[in-house]
């Protein structure tokens, strides 16, 4: 249904902006199509694949299951805004070092979920990593390299070898 768009004030990666959004427009649609923040991907648009995972008020959420108009008083972080944080830097390096992707479509969602895990549990074992990433589907890697990369990032953070 084409309902009227209205101006919505969103706080994304620390800065406020006004963007037009219809009632049924999801946060994912607005981030990608209005704000050109394209790290979050539209995969299934049903909340299943995890490629659109972003952080809202310090919790990971599916951007495709969040209505933009319902996010007005929230603090939203996308991968673009988290990139300078130590866990995310360590994760990026470890993903690259381990070849923890092929097509890369799932990678932004994987990084967001892994970053949330490392903030909560700095020393996760393989089981905890698999559980934390179970909502992020990858159709290339078979997951093993992703789990290895998250473990390597955790170890690097412990050794404090990650500097921005």
């Amino acid at each position: 249904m084409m309902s009227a768009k209205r101006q919505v004030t969103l706080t994304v990666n620390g800065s406020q902006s006004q963007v037009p959004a219809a009632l049924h427009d999801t946060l994912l649609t607005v981030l990608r199509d209005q704000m050109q923040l394209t790290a979050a991907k539209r995969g299934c648009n049903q909340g299943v694949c995890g490629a659109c995972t972003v952080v809202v008020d310090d919790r990971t959420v599916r951007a495709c299951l969040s209505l933009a108009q319902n996010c007005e008083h929230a603090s939203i972080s996308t991968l673009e805004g988290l990139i300078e944080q130590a866990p995310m830097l360590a994760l990026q390096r470890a993903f690259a070092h381990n070849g923890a992707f092929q097509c890369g479509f799932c990678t932004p969602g994987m990084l967001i979920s892994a970053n949330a895990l490392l903030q909560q549990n700095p020393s996760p074992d393989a089981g905890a990593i698999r559980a934390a990433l179970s909502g992020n589907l990858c159709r290339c890697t078979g997951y093993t390299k992703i789990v290895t990369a998250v473990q390597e990032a955790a170890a690097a953070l412990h050794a404090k070898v990650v500097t921005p």
Partner: protein
Amino acid sequence: MLQGLYHPNTVDEAIALLAQDPQARPMAGGASLVAMLNAGVIEPAALVSLASIEEIKGISVMPDGRIRIGAFTRHRETAEYALPLGAAAAVRQAASLIANVTVRNMGTIGGAIAFADPGLDYPPALVASGAEVEIASPFARRVVPAREFFVDWYLTALEPGELVVAVVLPRPGEGAQGVYIKHARVAGDYATASVAACRLGDGSVSVAVGACGPIPIANDAANTLLSADRSGAAITEAGALLERQADPLDDVRGSAEYRRQLIPRLLLRAIRSLEATEGEKP
């Protein structure tokens, strides 16, 4: 007719909005509703968000010891609830097995049970533990036992214009415990079949089967049997009683026949797992 997104601050305001326009839809966490919007299954011109209603958020112990989970309590909060739950420990375990971390951050117990997908984890746990559902209507509040709340495929005791306000769990009795056993193809999928088994405050056993028909399967004769006898033979007999009541689907998660075969096997695991909790703190 309402247009757009509404943010009532109280249950009464929400009920009044929904009464104004029967086409408006209430929205809790959005995990199911927005997926249906994206798929074009529903196209409501107005949504009534329940996110600003403080009285339906969080978990509290009532003066009589029962535990009230507000309808707008996320699965994560229920999964992480640290105080004793007695038989309703099965509800906490069910919450911890819903989908994945991110969906548990979004979905709410009220939204989930109002949607009443038969593959959900909550319904068998709520039925087995003897939980109740508090419902607000335009005229009054009413309470329905979980066993009567689930009516048919995606159909509940909710009348048009009513809202789930809370789930009320029984007072955790001495020795009461509950477990939830889920069989799914991969972690986070809907259950192919599931069983909740509870030892209630009076020492009796209560079980319910999920994902094997339109509503959770409970059977008084099976409960009576298991309360007196937890031998392999008694579990087989109780499993057969439950299986006879099943009306499972053939779908991508498993054939109807496969689901029928799962029932006695999951029941055995659930009862043995419940026995292993004996002597543990509720």
